[in-house]
């Protein structure tokens, strides 16, 4: 057992566990979008879970740090908040904000993060960027890149459940999004019986056709 101090509160934790995971279990609010529990190699791509650790000069992502006895952690220093706010605004500048029609609005991670950071749900100083990418067709899924925040959870979960991934990242730079390898045959893929990717998507960028038609009916 290790003892660590997070924002001046003493916490008992198992040595070697991920700092972010431990903090979240103890109810300490650290913004995150790409973190998945029990994943040994975190993607660390959303760049939101920064914390400061005594002895380390720059803020570090808490999903890539293992708990060590005596660790002193600050989760809300000015430095940390600056990076988190910028990362959050950058993500929002490519995310179409349309909460009224969004199935995720009740469990939306972005709304939760805006509360933690005490900022508006808006990119503010950054002009919104529209990602111009042609939608790829899929027998079961609809992918909306204007909502996607590139967290990679769908790619991870698909690979974990099926041994190989039927979803992958594609393209480069700001146009990076997910792709389905051009799959057209509904029978050769397990998606008909599996809902994992749409369930894990924090922003409803991936929807199954039946969800989508429900959504249209409501509108």
């Amino acid at each position, binding site marked *: 057992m290790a003892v660590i101090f997070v924002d001046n509160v003493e916490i008992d934790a198992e040595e070697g566990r991920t700092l972010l995971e431990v903090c979240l279990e103890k109810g300490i609010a650290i913004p995150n979008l790409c973190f998945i529990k029990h994943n040994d*190699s*975190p*993607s*660390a*791509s*959303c*760049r*939101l879970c*920064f914390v400061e650790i005594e002895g380390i000069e*720059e*803020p570090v*992502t808490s999903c*890539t740090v293992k708990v060590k006895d005596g660790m002193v952690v600050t989760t809300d220093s000015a430095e940390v908040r*600056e*990076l988190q706010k*910028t*990362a959050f605004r*950058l*993500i929002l*500048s*490519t995310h179409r904000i349309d909460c009224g029609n969004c199935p995720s609005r009740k469990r939306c991670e972005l709304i939760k993060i805006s509360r933690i950071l005490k900022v508006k749900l808006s990119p503010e*100083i*950054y*002009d919104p*960027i529209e990602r111009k990418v042609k939608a790829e067709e899929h027998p079961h899924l609809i992918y909306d890149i204007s909502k996607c925040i*590139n967290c*990679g959870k769908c790619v991870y979960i698909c690979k974990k459940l099926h041994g190989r991934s039927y979803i*992958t*990242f594609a*393209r*480069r*730079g*700001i*146009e*990076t999004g997910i792709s389905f390898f051009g799959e057209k045959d509904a029978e050769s893929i397990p998606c008909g019986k599996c809902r994992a990717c749409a369930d894990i998507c924090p922003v409803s960028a991936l929807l199954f056709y039946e969800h989508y038609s429900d959504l249209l009916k409501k509108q």
Partner: protein
Amino acid sequence: MSGNNEDIKNAFSEIKKNAEKNFNESRNSDIPAIYIGMATCGRAAGAEEAERAILETLDERNVKADVIHVGCIGHCYAEPVVIVDNPGFPPIFYYNVTAGKSKLIVKAFLERGDPLYEHLLGAMEENELIPSVMGFPRFGMEKRIVMEKCGHIDPEDINEYIKKGGYASLAFALSKTQADIIDEIRISGLRGRGGAGFPAWKKMEAVYGSDSKEKYIICNADEGDPGAYMDRTIIESNPHQLLEGMMVAAFAAGASKGIIYVRHEYPLAVKIIKKAIDDSNRMKLLGENILNSGFSFHIDIFEGSGAFVCGEETALIESVEGKRGMPRTRPPYPVERGLKNKPTVINNVKTLSTIPAIVNKGGKWFSGIGTKSSPGTAIFSIVGNVVHAGLVEIPMGVTIRTLIYDICGGIPGGKAFKALQIGGPSGGCLPESALDTPIDFDSLTEAGAMMGSGGMVVMDEDSCMVDVAKYFLEFTKNESCGKCTFCRIGTGHLLTILERITNGEGREGDVELLERLAGDIKRGSLCGLGKTAPNPVLTTIRYFRHEYEAHIHSKRCPSLKCRPLTAFYIDLGKCARGCDACVGSCPVDCIFTTKGRKKGIDQEVCVKCGECVTACPEEYNAVIKVSPPHLVPHIEKLEESK
């Protein structure tokens, strides 16, 4: 691991004896030898045409000579390069050898013994007859360790490499212990030439010290910086030196498998390195039980598909594993968990190619070259507004001023120096005040740039620094792998802001916004690409803030470069009555006749191509470019001129 030292020595001297014999049989020292630089750069400059002309003329005139392909000697301004070794003369360096010059060399020099003084650059060795190239600073002030043999040997002939001392360091290393070799490299102080300058011995030691049975060594030849071509040239000109360095490093680290990650866009380099590997395998310098030492090592080629980010070591490993080239978080570093999660040494082409010299001459010798914290030499591809562009190898610690003005001949056209871009898209722009900065890892980092892999672009007074920053950001924005937020979206926003500034739509506070966002991207990004991508923006703001402010506040481009902020007009005081030179040059017919049969430009139609500036005869020079555009005087369009 080391076997019987006598065995190793005997095995190597046997190979060397055969190589010398085969080489001597393949060359005839009684007839002239013509060496043509046939690396990618030479071919692009017309070396193939020169070769064809030489062969045809030799045949036509019935002159006997050996025509030998060599790699690149690094003097791009002189390409195509031909060195002629005519018995009775010292070897002579001819520059810009066109097909016509090739014929002349055969007819005048080989047939009549006239060395054509007007076409030669100098002799390759000291002699009484012809001044040596070493008197020319571009040769004399360089210090060649890695590139010593580049352009002098046939890269596809393993026998020549061995005859000229090749693979001796491998034989020597195999007779020592692994710890001895690592220690020698530690003493040399060799730092990684890929950009960050991490001590080379530390990686080897970490992998050597690991318990894992499987260990790897990877050569990173995924050179992608715009304007950088050092790695390509080294592979195309002396591939065996790289293989030798890699074998020594593999032996020291205990790796039994090596991978050379080279760009698919370098077809000639791929072909040459493949042949070199085959030849080494055939000579039993690679493979099982090398030189009876008990050490076995195999090398494979992996061709990268052109993603810039795969030059980042963890993305490179992902790519070799067959995944999308996206960086992993470090730690764990590749020396702990690299390829297939096994300990892996990753080094750049230049780092590995330096190792044979260190092993041959000793770490102490190497540490005496260059500066204390950055020993050895630096290789740069120096391009842009500079007279003698090309590859240079200089001792570390030489100042930027010496490099540009003394070694490379300064700025062409009598123009003023403005900035030096070092380190590609990850590096920065240094101004005139930084000209006396010594070139070494730490001084450059302190000045805000970085050594990088060795790309250098010299810019003269006509370059707009906001435009330069925009160019590099466009590159990184497109090459970002899209994994982490800061790099994927942040670079896009940096570019958007730079674009609006160069379009004359810059807003108050944009410079501060750039600084803030760039700082956050630098601290917040996942990998080296993102962490360094804002450097071009940050350094140009640091040294050329006034240019940003001129663009934003007075909508003026001080270098007259940004098209939306400039305009052309014709100075009626200079314009010649009745001269129509500019009229025909205009692609959009926007030049009209005004009073006194002089000319004017219709600003509404003008596309600012600048053709009229070129067309206007020099004695008038009447077309003037201004910024901001509203400085253009109103010139009346006459009705009857239509």
